[in-house]
């Protein structure tokens, strides 16, 4: 009985505030990737005519330029992708060459499949650029017990890279 009581008391201390958690995580990731202390995120304006050529669900509001010391150093993109019954939030950071330099799962809600948050697994997306279209098992390895989320992340990165390609072709990037 004492063990159960102590367990619940210790659990209460582990619960933390969730306000703006994604914003903090994104900031921490950008600082870590570029090894900088300060930066700003700047909106990228995309014409409606160009938007029509691009993936309907592209999250323009979360596609930003990363500015450090008044210089553009890269791009940050946040969005959601489906897992089995829910959605997960992810972040992709692009370099100036429009290749992925980092990716991270910000929030994973499903009870299973969260293994896609593995840093080592996500490294497989690093270096992929606007011309790449990734194939499950061939380019990106499987994770047993997380097949649906693995495929979802691959598909979402593919449509993202295709969108980046079109934005580049239309001189937005």
């Amino acid at each position, binding site marked *: 009985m004492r063990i*159960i009581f102590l367990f619940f008391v210790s659990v209460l201390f582990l619960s933390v505030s969730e306000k703006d958690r994604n914003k903090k995580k994104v900031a921490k990731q950008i600082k870590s990737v570029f090894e900088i202390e300060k930066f700003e995120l700047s909106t990228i304006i995309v014409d409606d005519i160009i938007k029509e050529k691009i993936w309907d669900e592209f999250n323009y509001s979360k596609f930003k330029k990363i500015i450090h010391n008044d210089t553009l150093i890269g791009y940050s993109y946040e969005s959601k992708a489906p897992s089995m*019954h829910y959605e997960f939030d992810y972040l992709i950071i692009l370099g100036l060459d429009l290749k992925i330099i980092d990716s991270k799962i910000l929030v*994973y809600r499903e009870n299973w499949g*969260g293994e896609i948050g593995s840093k080592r697994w996500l490294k497989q997306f690093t270096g992929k650029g606007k011309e790449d279209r990734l194939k499950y*098992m061939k380019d990106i390895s499987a994770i047993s*017990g997380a097949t649906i989320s693995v495929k979802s992340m691959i598909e979402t990165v593919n449509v993202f890279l295709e969108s980046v390609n079109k934005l580049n072709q239309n001189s937005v990037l």
Partner: protein
Amino acid sequence: MKKFNLIIVLLLASTSFVFAQNAAETLMNKGQGLVLGGYGEVHVNLPEDGNGKVDVHRLVTLLGYNFNEKVQFVSEIEFEHVVEVYVEQAFLSYALKDNLSLRAGLMLIPMGIVNEFHEPTTFNGVERPGMDKSIIPTTWREIGFGLNGRVDDASLKYQLYLFNGFKSSGLGGSNGIRSGRAKGAEAMWNTTNISAKVDWYGIQGLKLGLAGYFGDTNVDVNTDVPGVGISMIGLDARYVKDRFGMRGQFVTTSIDGSEEYNLAWDSDLGSKMNGWYLEASYNLFSLDKEEKLDFFARYSNYDTHAGVAGSLVANDAYNRNVLTTGLSWHVAPGAAFKMDYQILGNEASDENTSVINFGIGVWF
């Protein structure tokens, strides 16, 4: 001929089951509110000797609710063999922080591969591996609470729970502790058991699991009848690379107090139970195709009398081996036709028996 005609009828009838899953998808609104899903299996078992059997082995509804970003309820309601109804899972999950959740309710014990991942399209073979019935008593679920978390930097997932223990009645025989599952049905809780598992996936395509389960069975405080102490350790591995897959599992269980138990309950519970299997599979289709055709072969050995205490003589018939080979045709993600051929033997007999199995499996 009769059996062949029956197979054809069942295969044709099964196609309607595949279409039905689309209706369920329209009820789901990802990330919000009600979540609906499920899985199902229909089996045909044709032994070399004896009667063939057809069965809607399982039909399970996943019913969940997403209260908010942090709180989810997950439940699975199962119909087995058409007439039996069970609850397989019913727990509340609360995200304490990213990658760490508190769970409480009726949950799956994390041991081996199939007990947690038992949807029919996630394993080869029509039936679940034999050791996942006799050694790990799948589907093994009990009421408890605990923590479930991940360390993304280390490619590690961990689970730690306190569960209600097994019942003390009905243990023994070829299925070991299987009859001791309380399943959350007005179960006695006089002993608390510990369950823990760590999964590591730091090498691309490979996942290793190490699990432990420890505790005593529940004993009625108003009686003198003894229970036993259970210590179970499980190791499992899965590897997938291109079209090739492998998986393996080894579980050993020590049962403390089996001699006194057998005297009191007039049973034949072993003091040690071991089981293992090794499986290889190959996708015969190109990776460019959405459909998969996995050819597989699995060898398994499991024994509920790997050790016996006191005057109990080990029953060699409980030392079983099974060779299974077959095909799993995944026609869509979450829908498969399956068939396999099994050769079953045991140490008590020089003769083996065989059975052909057919089945369908869906998961959505």
